[in-house]
């Protein structure tokens, strides 16, 4: 992590060596005022982030509902719940949906904001650019509940605008009930995601593009390079480090195919064979069927694979010279 080194430091710790150990305690107590700033945060993170990590041990036990959360009263069962998941009839569907949905989101949702940023960068009418930006940020600020409501309303068989449009241009004769047809679910889900985040996602790339040295474009102009060539040969290579960093993060999230969006867009159980992913599966078996240990094990399985993916992506990125840590 790069740290500011320009700041002058007044209290340089230059105490003599022998008393150093005792000094740590004394110095710690002496700086109680700044320690008091960080300890509430440390405690809160301990309770709400580290205690649940300890709680993953539930996945290696048979959780008994009546004993509550006291972990040592439960029986250790090793990897029982993990192998149960691997042998469960849903395993194949859940894994396939998770991988397909997250790959689709990655392949379509990741480049979309970059392309939008490249397009916006070509716009010279500032007013037009600002209006487009403001409008495309709008969906980002709406909750998934609202977005799912809007999607449902657009695709509705009664008076849904999409059905009206498709009927007007004679593509269909009768309204199609898109929201209950498994074959459309992935397209709807991915479109809704791109629709929601494309504008907001482009902010970072626009800023990176703004940092490109303008003289390179001027030189390219003189050489007669077309706009398209300039984007391809100047803009994209310059913003590559930013793209790579966001790509690493996206790869680390590959098993997070989505949660809120899927839960809300696939309320109809008919869609389950195509909509069930690890996170929604954990939610359902854990919180609706109360199989706490089993659901914890499934969740842990996902978290471990995610860390593996992230480490791998970072390793590859480091080889190319851009890494996260």
């Amino acid at each position: 992590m790069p740290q500011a080194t320009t700041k002058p430091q007044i209290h340089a710790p230059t105490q003599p060596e022998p008393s150093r150990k005792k000094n740590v305690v004394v110095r710690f107590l002496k700086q109680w005022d700044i320690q008091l700033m960080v300890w509430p945060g440390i405690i809160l993170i301990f309770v709400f982030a580290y205690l649940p990590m300890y709680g993953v041990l539930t996945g290696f036990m048979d959780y008994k509902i009546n004993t509550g959360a006291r972990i040592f009263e439960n029986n250790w069962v090793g990897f029982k719940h993990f192998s149960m998941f691997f042998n469960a009839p849903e395993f194949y569907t859940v894994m396939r949906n998770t991988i397909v949905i997250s790959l689709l989101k990655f392949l379509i949702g990741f480049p979309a904001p970059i392309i939008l940023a490249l397009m916006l960068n070509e716009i010279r009418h500032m007013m037009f650019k600002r209006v487009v930006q403001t409008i495309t940020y709008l969906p980002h600020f709406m909750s998934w509940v609202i977005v799912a409501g809007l999607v449902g309303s657009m695709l509705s068989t009664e008076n849904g605008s999409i059905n009206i449009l498709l009927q007007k241009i004679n593509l269909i004769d009768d309204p199609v009930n898109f929201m209950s047809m498994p074959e459309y679910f992935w397209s709807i889900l991915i479109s809704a995601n791109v629709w929601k985040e494309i504008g907001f996602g482009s902010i970072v790339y626009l800023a990176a593009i703004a940092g490109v040295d303008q003289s390179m474009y001027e030189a390219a102009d003189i050489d007669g390079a077309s706009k398209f060539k300039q984007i391809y040969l100047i803009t994209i290579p310059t913003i590559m480090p930013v793209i790579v960093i966001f790509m690493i993060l996206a790869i680390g999230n590959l098993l997070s195919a989505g949660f809120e969006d899927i839960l809300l867009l696939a309320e109809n159980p008919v869609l389950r064979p195509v909509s069930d992913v690890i996170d929604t599966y954990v939610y359902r078996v854990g919180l609706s069927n109360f199989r706490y240990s089993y659901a914890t094990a499934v969740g842990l399985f996902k978290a471990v694979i995610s860390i593996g993916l992230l480490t791998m992506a970072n390793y590859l990125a480091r080889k190319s010279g851009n890494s996260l840590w």
Partner: protein
Amino acid sequence: MTRLAFGDRIMHIIIYTFLILLSFSALYPFWNALVISFNLGLDTSKGGVTFWPRVFTLENYEIVLNDKRLVNGMVISVARTVVGSAAAILMTAILAYGMTKRELIGRNVYMVYFIFTMYFGGGLIPTFLLIRSLGLMNTFWVFIIPALISVWNMIIFRTFFRGLPAGLEESAKVDGCSNWGILFRIVLPLSGPVIATLALFTAVSHWNDWFIASIYINNEKLLPIQTMLRQILNANIVTDMSNNLDTASQARIESARTITTKSLTMATMMVATLPIVLVYPFVQKYFVKGVLIGSLKE
């Protein structure tokens, strides 16, 4: 600017067309819902309402805003947004300022401790069991306390604080100002833009959250508007909605035949989004900056 080459002009036409279509698609679903919410329900059900209300009415809003449960949901949403964001921003800013201190003993260990939680977590079920055993179920505090510290926001705050001129702090120290005094009298007053950005993001996530209430809250009086809206929309899809709509609205539907569940749902949706939609364009320049501070850090 020189005259554009032929190929470049084609590209510009494509880009403008695409951006106009994209903006239209971003706005239209929202606009259509707004139109339906202002259209007479009975007329909407005849179909074909798209860009403009055909039979303008305020009655959908009248019903939504007179529904005690929905109003209570709004109050809960406002309360958790205001209390939750203010408390979270304050706690996170204090933590971040402490973490900027070079003399802070254990600083590097603390940093690793915080950052680790960005990559690994216990997951849904252990968190659920924890919240339950802490007795936070069915309390207002389940919205506030677990969300007090955001490591991500802490890092953004810390980066911003470090960028402030060091001389200000030094001179305040010489004048005998304590560290807490410096934080509240000098650092925070100079941090307007970053506070505005993070407060906006935190407020949006509080306002938009429906999930926490859906798993931790059974008490109807504590449900925020988004969770209620989800129940209404859900009922619309799975079963006949009018059975699941609250009794007050149902009674009114019985009495006034012009109202439909669709127009009521749309009006509720508008009420639940408008606060954000009205605010975000005005803080746009701040959050663009905030996103950048965040991404520079990476």
